[in-house]
C-alpha cells in the first residue's frame, strides 16, 4: 500500500526537473526533452488520480497526452531540422529571429 501523495510528489519532482531543464539548457533538443519530461510527470499524476478515484478516464487521458506529445515531437524536430539548415546552430541564444 503506497499513499497516492507519494506518486504526486514524484510527479512534481519530474515536472520541476523539466521546468528547470527548460530554463537552464541552451541546446534546443535538450529543451525538447525537458518538455517530454514535464509531460511524463503530468501523466504520472493522471494515472495516480485514476487509481485514487477508481476511474479509468485518467488512463484514457494519458493516452491522449501521449498522442499530443508524439505529434509535438515530430513537428518540433522537423522545425529544429529546418532551423539548423539555415542557421547551422542548435544554441537557442543564437536563434533570435522568428524568420527561418
Amino acid at each position, binding site marked *: *500500500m*503506497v*499513499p*497516492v*501523495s*507519494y*506518486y*504526486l*510528489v*514524484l510527479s*512534481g*519532482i*519530474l515536472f*520541476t*526537473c523539466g521546468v*528547470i*531543464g527548460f530554463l537552464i539548457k*541552451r*541546446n534546443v*533538443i*535538450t529543451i*525538447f*526533452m*525537458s518538455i*517530454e*519530461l514535464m509531460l*511524463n510527470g503530468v*501523466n*504520472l499524476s493522471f*494515472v*495516480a488520480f*485514476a*487509481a485514487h478515484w*477508481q476511474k*479509468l*478516464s485518467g*488512463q*484514457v487521458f*494519458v493516452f*491522449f497526452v*501521449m*498522442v*499530443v*506529445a*508524439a*505529434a*509535438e*515531437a*515530430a*513537428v518540433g*524536430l*522537423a*522545425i*529544429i*531540422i529546418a532551423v*539548423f*539548415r539555415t542557421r547551422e546552430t*542548435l*544554441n537557442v*541564444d543564437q536563434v533570435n529571429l522568428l524568420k527561418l
Partner: protein
Amino acid sequence: MHLVLFLVFGAICTAGAVNLLAQTHPISSALSLVVVMASLAVEYLLLGAEFVAAVQVIVYAGAVMVLFVFVIMLLNAGIEERTKGSHVAIVLGVPGVLAGGLLIAWTLLKRSGGGTVALGSLPGAPQTIAKQLFHEFLLPFELTSILVLIAIMGAVFLANRPEPKGPATGKES
C-alpha cells in the same frame, strides 16, 4: 513490497531526471530520459495501469526517443556551450524553487486526505481501456487521428528541403 518497488524505481526515475539536467551532451540526456521513461512504466504497472505501461514503453521509450536520437545523430549535435546566467537569478531562483517544492510536497503529504493505492486495485487492462476509449471518448479519439495526420503533413513539409527557385538555376536533367 509495493512500497519498496515504488521507492527503488522512483529513485531511479529521479536520478535519471537529474542526470538529464547535469549532462552536457544531448545523447547522454536522451539516454537518461529513456531511463526515466522505463522506470515510469514500472510505476504505472504498480498503479495497475498495464495498458499505459505498455504504451509508455512502446511509444515513448521506443518511438519518440528513437526520433530524438535520430535527430541528434543527423544534426551531429555536440557538447552544448553554457551561457552564464545572471547572478540574481541564481541567488533568488535556487532557494525559491526549493521553498516552493518543499511547500508543495508538504501540502501533498500532510493535507491530501491520505488515500492509498494497493496493487491491482484498478485493473487497466486493454479491454476496459478500449471500452472507455471507443464509447465515451470516441469523438476525441477521432480528433486525435486528424491531429496526427496534420502533424505528419507538417513534419514532412517542414523538413522538406526547399527546391531552388528560378528557371535558370541548376536543373539537373
